[in-house]
């Protein structure tokens, strides 16, 4: 054990009724620990909610989209069949869309009609189902802008369809949509090839890789829009939210570090006579600086480590025990989700350590530069 460890240990222990040094060190330690714990718990909470949102996106959303670079329809040819053959695990759905009116009973609402070549039944999303008051087994009438010549003159094409299923909507999705098998919906859209192709992987977590898998299998003139690009605004908003709240909560650690700075400055002032005596006995200024740097970083690091461990444990237990329930039907999850990540814990540790280091620099430098004789005269 070096003399610096010995000195730091005795100062922190507060021997011989000098408990105020130990007390202020304990306060600094506690403040750093609380700051680190708050940061870990907050980041775990954000990550928990955001992971839930991302999982819902992966589960309900499209994983990649192929669309024409220019023009209204995708190029012709057998490339789509080749794509299906090469990636049999992917759900490949060619869509032709049109704006339509949907009617059920007395209700009517504008909606988007998607003709899907692989679909076997009519599906509506929850938005449309809610607006028309329909569900699986109900029927609705689709009125298309494609005109049909009747004895009364040109009239919108109308078709009565039986709803086979209701789809969940993704986060932020508020448009009404009806999906109709291509054969059943022929005549409801202007003739032409498919306008887009939707791709889905069998497992939701594979959503992020679908675009890169098919990228080389589409002809020129077709853009592949990845899952990330499809959801870029939402993902960017989530990331920004996480960063801003993280910075805000990290300020707690900065405040704790300022407290550490004050306490170290007080300790250096309190021990100025002792430090002067040590310097007179041959302790070089560099090691005086190391002593106070070590004290500050030690308190900060220990507080950061224990606070991070405590915060991580609390977040883990809250998630595992479902201790914070949420009203059913309002949120997509039944309890407040926490997800502790290694990056969040590393961030809390790094912020604690860097803050403690910066907070210790000033008092450590001041202690090392203090005149020995001034210290020896100090009582």
């Amino acid at each position, binding site marked *: *054990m*070096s*003399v610096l460890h*010995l000195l730091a240990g*005795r*100062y922190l*222990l507060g*021997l*011989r*009724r*000098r408990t105020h040094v130990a007390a202020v060190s304990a306060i600094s330690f506690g403040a750093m620990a609380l700051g680190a714990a708050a940061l870990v718990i907050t980041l775990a909470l954000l990550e928990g909610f955001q992971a839930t949102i991302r999982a819902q996106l992966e589960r309900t959303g499209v994983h990649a989209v192929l669309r024409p670079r220019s023009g209204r329809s995708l190029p012709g040819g057998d490339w789509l069949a080749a794509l299906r053959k090469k990636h049999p695990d992917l759900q490949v759905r060619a869509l032709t869309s049109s704006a339509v009116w949907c009617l059920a009973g007395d209700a009517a609402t504008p909606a988007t009609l998607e003709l899907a070549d692989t679909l076997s039944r009519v599906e509506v999303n929850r938005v449309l189902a809610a607006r028309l008051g329909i569900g699986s087994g109900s029927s609705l009438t689709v009125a298309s802008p494609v005109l049909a010549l009747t004895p009364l003159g040109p009239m919108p094409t109308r078709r009565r369809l039986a709803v086979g299923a209701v789809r969940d909507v993704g986060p932020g999705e508020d448009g009404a949509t009806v999906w109709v098998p291509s054969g059943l919906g022929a005549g409801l859209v202007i003739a032409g090839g498919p306008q887009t192709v939707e791709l889905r992987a069998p497992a939701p977590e594979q959503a992020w890789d679908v675009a890169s898998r098919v990228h080389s299998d589409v002809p020129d003139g077709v853009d592949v829009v990845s899952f990330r690009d499809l959801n870029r605004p939402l993902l960017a908003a989530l990331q920004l939210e996480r960063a801003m709240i993280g910075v805000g909560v990290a300020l707690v650690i900065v405040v704790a570090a300022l407290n550490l700075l004050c306490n170290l400055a007080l300790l250096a002032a309190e021990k100025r*006579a*002792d430090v*002067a*005596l*040590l*310097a*007179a*006995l*041959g*302790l*070089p*200024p*560099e*090691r005086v600086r190391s002593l106070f740097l070590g004290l500050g970083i030690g308190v900060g690091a220990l507080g950061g480590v224990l606070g991070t461990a405590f915060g991580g444990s609390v977040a883990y237990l809250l998630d595992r025990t479902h201790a914070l329930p949420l009203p059913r039907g309002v949120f997509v999850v039944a309890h407040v989700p926490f997800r502790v990540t290694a990056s969040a814990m590393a961030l809390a540790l790094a912020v604690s350590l860097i803050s403690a280091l910066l907070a210790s620099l000033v008092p450590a430098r001041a202690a090392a530069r203090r005149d*020995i*004789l001034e210290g*020896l005269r100090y*009582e």
Partner: protein
Amino acid sequence: MSEATSSPNAALPNAQERNNAVPGTSVAVRAVALAKGYGGGDRRVEVLRGLDLDVAAGEMLAVVGPSGVGKSTLLHLLGLLDRPDGGSIELFGENVMPWTAEERARFRNRSLGFVFQFHALLPEFTLAENVAMPLLIGGQRRSSAVAEARELLVAVGLAARAEHFPDQLSGGEQQRGAVARALVGSPRLLLADEPTGNLDAANAEALFELVQTLHLSRGLTSVIVTHNEALAGRCDRVLRLTGAADG
């Protein structure tokens, strides 16, 4: 304003010095034209001005004089705790003037022993640990440093107090502990600043006897600042600093 002077040649004992003999042949401490002042502008006070001083190896020199005349300043300059404004200092033949703070600290740790009037011991450490502190600062292992410290505590009659903390010791015991600390690691030069200043007559006498005994038995060179004329008179030589009107 006062200036620090001694006899016409500060390097030589003045008329009031009882012992002119120089026990050693080599010079342990040499100060040439030493000058030191404090403050600036109109408030500048020149404490030492052109002081020349030689202390022979093995000599015990007492520095006396009225308060504010520069006794402690001289001791601090010789102990490398402060830098002079002018002049030069040689310790054991080495010119210390160009040394960095690190080099001065290393020299203090290895070759100098200090006894101060105040701040004798560190309150959070036992007496043995306090005595061992210079060795610990020098990088020695704690067990061997404390063992060496215990041997010195036997020599100063404080063996039974080794595990006591400073606030459990009397003033005299604390100063004896400080003497032990000053001598641990076998320094060559002992510098004591009013070591008996806080002690009653009996304790002051006992402490001075202890210092004198250790000085002789360890072949030290000692410079002792004191107000106590009787104790100063028992040193090999007395350097008397006197205040004088400026100009």
